[in-house]
């Protein structure tokens, strides 16, 4: 039973991951991005759980719970909690929606081309889905480069990080639990620090537009 649904479940989870990433590029409002991020966190946790059940390893299922707590609930909660305090400035990205969605499509194709070379030897079902993770990394970069608001850049960073986690789970079944804990803690702290800085920026300049960070140069 599970053997037949396993490929479909993997496909469903990775499909959700890619879809939410693409939607984040499309939507400009901060609140929508945070909700999509929460959905993405749940999809990632589900993916890890599916891999864990298929392998029959308790440790991987524990990692799935950890991912759910940090990426599905913790981070979106921190982001939403902080965002309420400040004014809701919508993003005016450097690329219009059509161009950015087209870029997403190109990046996804690029991810498949690159993965077909790197992962040529691996023929497992999960390895076939690994290009999605790489595509998410590239989409995260796209968000980082094209967004002007400090907090939207943060969303890009988190998509990038989710992409890396997806690659990790699909190619090697995840890292040891100790390491996963360390990585999750690091990401959580980086996000909090960036949030503190975004808050200071808001206090100092009245907005969080990173285009004004141009004082230091040679």
């Amino acid at each position, binding site marked *: 039973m599970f053997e037949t649904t396993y490929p479909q479940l993997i496909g469903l989870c990775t499909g959700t991951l890619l879809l939410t990433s693409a939607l984040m590029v499309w939507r400009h409002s901060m609140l929508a991005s945070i909700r999509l991020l929460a959905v993405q966190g749940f999809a990632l946790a589900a993916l890890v759980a599916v891999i864990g059940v298929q392998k029959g390893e308790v440790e991987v299922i524990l990692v799935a719970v950890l991912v759910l707590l940090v990426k599905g609930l913790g981070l979106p909660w921190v982001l939403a909690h902080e965002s309420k305090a400040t004014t809701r400035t919508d993003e005016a990205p450097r690329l219009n929606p059509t161009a950015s969605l087209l870029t997403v499509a190109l990046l996804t194709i690029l991810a498949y081309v690159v993965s077909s070379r790197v992962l040529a030897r691996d023929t497992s079902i999960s390895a076939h889905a690994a290009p999605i993770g790489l595509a998410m*990394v590239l989409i995260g970069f796209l968000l980082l480069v094209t967004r002007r608001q400090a907090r939207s*850049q943060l969303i890009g960073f988190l998509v990038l990080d989710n992409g890396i986690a997806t*690659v990790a789970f699909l190619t*090697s*079944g995840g890292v040891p639990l100790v*390491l996963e804990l*360390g990585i999750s803690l690091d990401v959580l702290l980086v996000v909090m*620090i960036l949030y503190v800085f975004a808050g*200071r920026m808001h206090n100092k300049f009245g907005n969080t537009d990173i285009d004004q960070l141009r004082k230091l140069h*040679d």
Partner: protein
Amino acid sequence: MSQSLSFALWTPLALPVLFALLSLTVPSPRVRRLGPIASSLAVLGSGVILDVAVLNDQVPTFGGLLRADALSAYLLTVVGAIGLVATWGGLGGNGHSQTPARWAGSYDGLISVFLAAMSLAVVADNIGLMWASIEATTITTAFLVGAHRTGKSLEASWKYVILGSVGVAIALLGILLIYAASRATGEATLSWLVLSQPGLPLDPALVRAGGALAVLGFATKAGLAPMHSWLPDAHSQAPAPVSGLMSGVLLAVALYAILRVQAITDAVIGPDFLRAMLSVAGLLSLFVAAALLIRQRDFKRMLAYSSIEHMGLMAIGAAVGAAALPAVLLYMLGHGLVKATLFVVSGRILEVEGTPTIANVRALLVRRPGLAIPWLVAMAALVGFPPFSIFFSEVGIILAGWSAGMGVVVGIALVLLLVIFASLTRLTVALTIGSPHDALDHTPPTLPEHATGEATARTGHPTAPGDESEADRAATNLSRLEVEAGIDGAGAPEPFPMTSNIRVAAPFPDTVAVPVVDVVIAPDRSTHGPLLPLVLALATCAVVPFIANPVGVLLVRAAAVLGGAH
């Protein structure tokens, strides 16, 4: 015996964390500021113990995750030594006075945690753990860079955290690909000891992609071009001891991570791939440093670009491979010590002069020999004069590159080094040498702030004992403004009045052509902070290259670790 020394593996992690907690809880600022120094001493002491262990052919391990071979032990010593110079030398100033009172202990606490994270990065036998601790340094230094809480420091710390964490995220992707490749050994592992064995059946395509991404990510942290753009901003805005720590310790440890990854990939796909990558990054770094040093105006940014230059040359050394590695490792120590010294002195100059612009300082040798002389000696070491170890490292790398058939790369590097040498010399001359009358024309923008201190000193009121910097500032203003009134530096520790002529003090009589008579300049001989750490750092840097045993032996063994000897 091996087990009895393994305590030295966890002391550099546990003790700094303990001192960090003490820094947060102890109310007295004087005691609190000793925390980072104690942490550095703990790291240095553990490093020396491990050095002794590895020289006696032992490899201490602890709990399966920590392991000290010759390379780890040496790097731990480097971290401790540079940390000691930066934290002890940083005692004098009040570089983080703008921190709100409720966060006052966090500055010292974060420095201790930073040192613990760096120690963990070098003694971890797990690439993943090494990654996590390098990422942890981004977290600890983020607030340290932004400690001044100005708009500029906010900008610097934002850029630093974004670029730094994205960089190490790329490194994580690379490490995970190497981890995926390691499944071919039977059990997936991140132990660097297992992975760097020769002849493992790893998938070359995965290792190539993983190695490239990991090196790219750690190169961001090491400040190699073209991912260097955070470095000048962060180094120029951070408080001076933090700049010294980042430049001396963080960049070196990031390069250490590159060397470890290189050892893994070289065993699978041969050295050519990363050699090309590191050569390009190294030359590009040298080029960026040369291009931006020519027109540099800020002395802290000058030091930052010099760090990019030295990291570039170290990357070229790493590209050359085994023959150049002892020189690269010695380079890490020499550059770290000298750069920590220079950043500490730059912090003191910034504090007493109130400006980071070279053109607004000038004539430091005449006005403040106490700061200018350490600066000049350290700059001589930095640009590569013998007997300081940087000279021997640079020569070692260039000779090894030449005999390894990389003549073109080291040739270009030499030309760029000459350009950098000329720029640094010109900027140092502009900062230190010259007539003080030029300096008097440039009234620094912060003078009005110190008007009260000046008034106190002028009326002869004794300044409060704990208020040394205020007294120094007063002395500055006296030597600067009250020249014609004939008042000697009341607040200076060594009053040095000269009533006849400036020519007596100026070491270059021909430069003082201005006929100024009856001018009093009291040269400020105060070093504005502890002098001993600076002297120790420069003396170590000058003596170390001449000690064949045990330093030379340790360097050769550490380099051999990367070549496959365990």
